[in-house]
């Protein structure tokens, strides 16, 4: 049988353990770490490498039957896909994320000079000299609790 992208190599309900092998070319190492991290609270995880494949050993912290172990293997593969997508989205939007964070930090400091946010250069987001600007003033009572029992404490 041809080697699949990911597959269960071993599955042993007696020890509540299983072994998965993954195509190294399909999943970056960061994705493997992220997926493994999610399972640390319910399984003992050991990563290994046998070229050209990553090998993932999982041993559940609680006894599991065969069906549950197979489900765990499926969940690990799903987690790999989710983390791979997350990785791609972060890569694709890295510049935007950095710009938004830079403008937010600069704005909170009352100075956006030096930020790379096009169109916002020189425009202070909050004027520290103006008490009506920012979040302290609440002219429309937005910050007041609407529950009657909490209104008295204001």
């Amino acid at each position, binding site marked *: 049988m041809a080697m699949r992208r990911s597959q269960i190599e071993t599955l042993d309900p007696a020890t509540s353990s299983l072994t998965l092998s993954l195509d190294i070319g399909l999943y970056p190492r960061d994705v493997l*770490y992220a997926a*493994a*991290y999610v399972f640390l609270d319910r399984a003992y995880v*050991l990563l290994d490498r046998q070229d050209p494949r990553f090998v993932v050993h999982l*041993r559940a912290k609680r006894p599991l039957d065969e069906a549950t172990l197979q489900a765990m293997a499926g969940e690990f593969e799903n987690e790999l896909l989710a983390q791979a997508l997350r990785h791609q989205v972060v890569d694709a939007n890295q510049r935007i994320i950095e710009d938004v964070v830079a403008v937010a930090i600069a704005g909170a400091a009352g100075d956006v000079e030096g930020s790379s946010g096009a169109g916002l250069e020189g425009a202070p987001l909050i004027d520290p000299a103006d008490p009506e600007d920012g979040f302290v003033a609440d002219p429309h009572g937005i910050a007041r609790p609407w529950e009657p029992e909490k209104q008295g404490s204001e």
Partner: protein
Amino acid sequence: MTPPSGDTDAATIRLHRALYVEEAITEAAATFAGLASFAVRADGEHYIIDVTDIARDVDGDVVAEFCNFALANTARLQRSGHA
């Protein structure tokens, strides 16, 4: 090979050098210093960790938990760009 078990007084762990960072392993060893003794050395493609004097009076599997810590530390260090 399954994640090693600390069911005996000593164990040997093999962690692939392409997947685990030495700093992460030594951090994990420091965390578990009160529960066992750890000796880390490089051997070919793996780090070999000799675990001795494993505490018997603790809940859970000391050796396997150590492996989880080494992996978590590695993931954290890789993400923060230390490795």
